[in-house]
């Protein structure tokens, strides 16, 4: 990666709040940024995906139970 490319890359990370940079003399120091909001949003989305995967399986269980109830209901009559 070229120096210009690097600078651009860091700029993108900085805008995204992932890093903060500070230039002292000739040296620019980068730190991981606050990214509090991004991290929380990512966590909530991953949590959502876990529940969504579970609930897609639960849909199948619900369908099975409904089918069984229908059959049992008919047998009782």
């Amino acid at each position, binding site marked *: 990666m070229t120096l210009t490319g690097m600078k651009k890359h860091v700029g993108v990370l900085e805008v995204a709040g992932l890093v903060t940079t500070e230039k002292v003399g000739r040296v620019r120091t980068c730190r991981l940024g606050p990214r509090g909001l991004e*991290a929380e949003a990512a*966590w909530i989305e991953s949590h959502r995906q876990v529940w969504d995967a579970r609930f897609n399986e639960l849909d199948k269980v619900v369908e099975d139970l409904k089918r069984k109830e229908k059959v049992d209901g008919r047998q009782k009559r």
Partner: protein
Amino acid sequence: MDDRRGSQPNPIKNRTTVERRSDRELVVTRTFNGPAHVVFEAWTKPELMKLWWAPKSTGVPLRSCEMDVRVGGRYRLEFGHDASESMAFIGKYIEVTPPSRLVWTNEESEDGAVTTVTFEERDGRTLLVLRELYPSKEALDEAVAGMEEGMPEQFEQLDELLVTLGTSV
């Protein structure tokens, strides 16, 4: 009764939402195409719970599932590939009201949430709302922060890149 058989061969997938509703509370909602007593049953019988609580896509199987679903009864759900690397979720039921409400504690840590699940039936469908209420803002923050530990690799790589950049830019 709605009995249009075959009218819904591929029912539209219902959306799962998750939101942090307050400093201490996380809320998950989802609608199911079935009556509340059926959905409730799937949450309270271990043999049914096993079928969906650990979906294959998450990659970690449910090793055992013990649930004594009555007020004061305990549960223990153990995940893992083998006995040496398993993780157990434990707690007790503090409210059991078929088919509309289920409340349990999460006791794997001191800062565990209390989980309340409500099942609200309307026109043969059930709106499920799951609330996780943490003892403090810090406890929920910590649960959220725990997730970052799940992504250390990316951050480590980023750290390395930044160290390199810091010395050269």
